[in-house]
């Protein structure tokens, strides 16, 4: 495992092991924020940014905890790093683009509890990546999530014109469409593999 190059991990995290479509992480904001394409793009970029940087930070934090023999505190440390970083991004977005800030609304602070970000950090620990691999994996996972939510938002906007059976309207059809997308992404499976 440890000899896989960071680039391969990046590609694999986007396509073959997509954090959302293969590992089901980040579903809550995926379903809630995929109605508008521009919101999805904004959130996707924010998540990519946060995932990439927090995974790198969390790698360092985890190393420190391991040397101090405090490994059982990993979860709390990870979530604290993520929360602090999200707070920082929130202030940044508010300064740079107030419009994006208002359209993301409540979901920006909720990135903290976006399981894709914590999940990426936990996968990084379980798969024993080194620092460079972790950075590749972090950005790949974030980009994969962004790709999925952007595709989904585009599909859902088109779906507004379709005649969906009543019980399936809303979340149910979104789940089915996501399932079809997951099948499509399974087509990439032979390309590269990380596990």
């Amino acid at each position: 495992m440890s000899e896989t190059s960071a680039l391969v991990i990046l590609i694999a995290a986007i396509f073959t092991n997509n954090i959302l479509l293969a590992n089901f992480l980040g579903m809550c904001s995926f379903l809630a924020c995929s109605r508008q394409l521009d919101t999805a793009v904004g959130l996707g970029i924010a998540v990519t940014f946060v995932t990439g940087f927090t995974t790198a930070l969390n790698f360092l934090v985890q190393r420190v905890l391991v040397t101090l023999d405090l490994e059982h505190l990993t979860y709390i440390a990870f979530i604290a790093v993520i929360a602090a970083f999200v707070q920082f991004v929130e202030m940044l977005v508010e300064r740079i683009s107030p419009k994006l800030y208002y359209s993301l609304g409540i979901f920006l602070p909720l990135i903290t509890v976006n399981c894709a970000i914590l999940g990426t950090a936990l996968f990084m620990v379980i798969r024993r990546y080194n620092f460079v691999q972790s950075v590749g994996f972090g950005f790949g996972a974030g980009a994969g999530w962004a790709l999925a939510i952007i595709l989904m938002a585009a599909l859902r906007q088109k779906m507004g014109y379709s005649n969906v059976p009543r019980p399936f309207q809303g979340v149910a059809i979104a789940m089915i469409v996501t399932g079809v997308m997951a099948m499509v992404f399974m087509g990439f499976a032979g390309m590269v593999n990380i596990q």
Partner: protein
Amino acid sequence: MTNQTQAGCGPACGPSCGSTGLCGGKGFLTVKDGLLTNNPVWVQILGICSALAVTTRLENSLVMGAAVIFVICMSNLIISLLRNTIPHRIRIIVEVAIIALFVIVCDQVLKAFYWEMSKQLGPYVGLIITNCIVMGRAEAFALQNPPLISVVDGAANGLGYAIILAVIGAFRELAGTGAILGHVILSPEWYTPNQLMILAPGAFFALGALIALVAAVRGGQEQEAGR
């Protein structure tokens, strides 16, 4: 089931509500809310990450359900006890820290006594921290209500969640391998296991179908909520 839980709830919330007499009714409503009318998975669409990820086998689903019930009950209890001391501005961080504490307990117990399961669930035990149900109950219920009723609410919501996990887990294991808890139910002579059901797309299809089924049964009332 609802009747049993109602009976069990009476003494549990007794001391907390004093002599108002509303107690039994409130406890019952809380339980019913968590299990049926406001079920976290199919009505509020919360916490579906792990509902999708761990449901490849019934056994995994049951363990995960138990872990979530434990975490919700304990975090609701502690947050409710501290509800008047937690400063409003930093409440989210405090809640997350309390939840993380109990998730760590769960994780360590699993690692110590149930290593195989701990390996199979992988990061998803840790991800209970970011399970919106736990956080949602803390925010919506435990912060406003006394401790005992909060525990009841946590148990009801956790149970509602665990039941969904079990149903999806049983369905996926049956369709995907022809067995339940490892016992062969559908004989391989006439049933070819549908591998897709234990892979990622199967999870989306199963949960999507379940949500649609519930919506159809209930006359599509919650479509407005899901929209």
